[in-house]
């Protein structure tokens, strides 16, 4: 490794050769402003916010893509000329921006707004084309508002990284906009609803479809019994919305906040995750024993399921027929819980809190719900829950810990790790191994499938049977595995696929961390660590050990895979067109 002696703002430093100026400055405690830069996926040097001076260079250089390759390089990051350049860049961006910060859903978490404040811009300095774009409300999961778009292309990179690529730059010059081909709306193309574009957008141009008003309305309706359940990963991320460190586990405070918001019952979707394992584990064993379609692929992630339907419809028989934990939990609330509580399920409003915006689409899917009822009525993201808590004036960080409500209060450690890539596989293996051996195995850590690598493979000996598994997160990685399956080159029995890179902890509904944070920390690793810690500390670590799971089978469902279980907990998929629908 060749090291170079350099100067930044007159101070001496040593850096590895070919480190970018941006990276080097970060190492030495200097934040260079960026808008378009996203590490690894959008390194295009386009926005010109990161301009710095390199002594001897012809002009200012883009720090995000400028490699330091000469001994003695002298860099300046904060001269009057640089500050003026960056300020002008911002003012030019604002010349064609709607500047409606007061009503913008990203106000106070907008990278453009933050920089404008830091650089003291005059937002009226330049009057640009002031192009007006219609908002795109054509999907259930997000809203596109190009009036706030700064053409940084972070969403384009994220969409392409997901192997979907339904949004991109169209037209040229002043007419350039980020959009779909042939002026189509997002609802008319094969968008998979993952929402990764919303977590990378630096402004309010791409935001989740906000369903909080519907939740507040239900809570205010005395004729409704409003039940909420929270996905595994929410407890590891919600704290970020209240300034807590990334990876803070806030289960108790989250439950307290939900109770204070007025929900009649606060349930844990980890219970639904455990139920998924019971059904999916059983389905896997049956497929192996009965010569069913293998490899079996998990079906918990609605973005992944929609991707499969659009892009790999020929592989749909490989998908487990199990509904996702969200849908299983909702179905059980409106059947098992409703019966036990003596409430007409039509009077129950089920609200799910999810790390995901594709869940907003999933709740409306065909072949889910029954008797004209959806399994879940409203699905909100981590971000929307945080917004509700703030609106209600609840001081989240000061809250005492609350407990989930029976009869869906308990989730095993296996349920909690559903939120991270590899978690569903590990949870399933914990149960499948016990079922097949008939023992209570003590070695339940499947370390090979943990970690944030996009693709993981492992081979396990499960009760004398060799099980080869693959785990992929992020649809680009999923596609790599699926191409092998399609070509008949894969010898896996079981595959876990999660739509978002790193799994639900990095889902499209999770708290938005600005570029200068996400470029330098591994969000998905920090958040996943909290879930694996949670797993270690829980009294039950296998889904089938969960006493509430035992109870639901004893009292209601019978056996995993029973007729009733199939009616309530399993579903089907449909082939969909790709590109333009």
């Amino acid at each position: 490794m060749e090291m170079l002696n350099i100067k930044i703002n007159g101070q001496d430093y040593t850096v590895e050769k070919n480190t970018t100026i941006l990276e080097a400055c970060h190492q030495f405690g200097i934040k260079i402003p960026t808008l378009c830069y996203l590490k690894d996926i959008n390194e295009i040097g386009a926005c010109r916010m990161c301009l710095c001076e390199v002594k001897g260079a012809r002009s200012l250089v883009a720090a995000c893509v400028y490699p330091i390759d000469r001994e003695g390089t002298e860099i300046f990051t904060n001269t009057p000329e640089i500050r003026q350049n960056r300020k002008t860049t911002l003012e030019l961006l604002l010349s064609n921006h709607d500047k409606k910060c007061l009503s913008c859903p990203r106000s106070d978490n907008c990278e453009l707004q933050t920089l404008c404040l830091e650089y003291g811009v005059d937002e009226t300095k330049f009057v640009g084309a002031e192009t007006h774009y219609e908002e795109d409300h054509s999907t259930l999961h997000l809203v596109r508002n190009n009036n706030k778009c700064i053409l940084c292309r972070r969403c384009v990179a994220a969409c392409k990284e997901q192997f979907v690529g339904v949004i991109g730059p169209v037209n040229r010059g002043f007419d350039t906009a980020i959009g779909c081909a042939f002026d189509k709306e997002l609802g008319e193309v094969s968008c998979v609803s993952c929402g990764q574009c919303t977590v990378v957008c630096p402004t309010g141009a791409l935001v989740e479809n906000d369903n909080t008003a519907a939740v507040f309305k239900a809570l205010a309706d005395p004729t409704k019994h409003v039940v909420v359940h929270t996905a595994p990963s929410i407890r590891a991320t919600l704290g970020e919305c209240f300034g807590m460190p990334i990876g803070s586990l806030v289960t108790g405070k989250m439950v307290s906040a939900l109770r204070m918001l007025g929900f009649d019952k606060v349930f844990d979707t980890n219970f639904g995750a455990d139920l998924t394992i019971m059904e999916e584990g059983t389905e896997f064993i049956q497929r192996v024993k009965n010569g069913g379609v293998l490899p079996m692929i998990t079906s918990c992630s609605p973005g992944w399921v929609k991707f499969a339907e659009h892009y790999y419809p020929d592989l749909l028989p490989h998908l487990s027929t199990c509904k996702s934990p969200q849908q299983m939990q909702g179905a059980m609330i409106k059947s098992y819980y409703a019966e036990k509580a003596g409430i007409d399920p039509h009077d129950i409003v089920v609200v799910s809190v999810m790390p995901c915006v594709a869940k907003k689409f999933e709740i409306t899917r065909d072949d889910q719900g029954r008797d004209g009822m959806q399994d879940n009525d409203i699905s909100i993201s981590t971000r929307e829950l945080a917004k509700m808590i703030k609106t209600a004036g609840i001081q989240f960080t000061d809250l005492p810990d609350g407990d989930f409500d029976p009869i869906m209060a308990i989730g095993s450690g296996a349920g909690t790790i559903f939120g991270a890539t590899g978690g569903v596989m590990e949870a399933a293996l914990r149960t499948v191994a016990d079922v097949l051996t008939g023992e209570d195995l003590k070695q339940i850590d499947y370390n090979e499938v943990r970690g944030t690598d996009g693709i993981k493979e492992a081979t396990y000996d499960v009760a004398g049977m060799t099980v080869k598994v693959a785990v992929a997160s992020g649809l680009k990685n999923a596609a790599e595995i699926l191409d092998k399956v399609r070509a008949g080159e894969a010898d896996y029995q079981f595959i876990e696929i999660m739509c978002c890179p790193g799994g639900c902890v990095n889902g499209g509904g999770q708290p938005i961390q600005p570029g200068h944070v996400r470029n330098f920390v591994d969000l998905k690793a920090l958040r996943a660590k909290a879930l694996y810690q949670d797993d270690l500390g829980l009294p039950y670590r296998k889904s089938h050990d969960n006493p509430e799971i035992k109870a639901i089978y004893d009292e209601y469902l019978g056996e995993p895979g029973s007729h009733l279980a199939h009616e309530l907990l399993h579903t089907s998929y449909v082939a969909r067109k790709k590109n333009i629908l």
Partner: protein
Amino acid sequence: MLKKISSLPFQGTPEQEAQLKEVIAKHKDDPGAVMPVLQEAQDIYGYLPLEVQLMIAEGLDVPIDEVYGVATFYSQFALSPKGKYNISVCLGTACYVKGSGDVLNRLSSELGIDAEECTMDGKFSLTACRCIGACGLAPVMTVNDDVYGRLTADEVPSILAKYKDA
């Protein structure tokens, strides 16, 4: 110039489709295949409607948005068919200051189409082009290979009449 998406029905033939498939097969493994395939596709069809771009996207296994992005970025690509007579009005600096904008507007109202569009009968299409190097004749327009210089908007109807029945 913002490109107009044609609303005219697609009239591609099986022969054209076979030709396009050959082009796609030829370039399939080339890096950056989208642009040469679009060029050859435009040679085959005369323009690049949705149906053609979809075939290219599927054939090259790239998102349709990538194909469309390239097609709308480069001025040589057209999303609208060219008519039997393609009228190009030069909007280069010299022509523009000499009033070619008025000529274009008059053509547009006479033909009932905007720039980058084609009439329903397929007879005329209208293009706003950049400098064609005939500044001495400004303002200039061309109808296929015929050049008309030192124009005024009032001359437009009589020029169009020559081609209407041709």
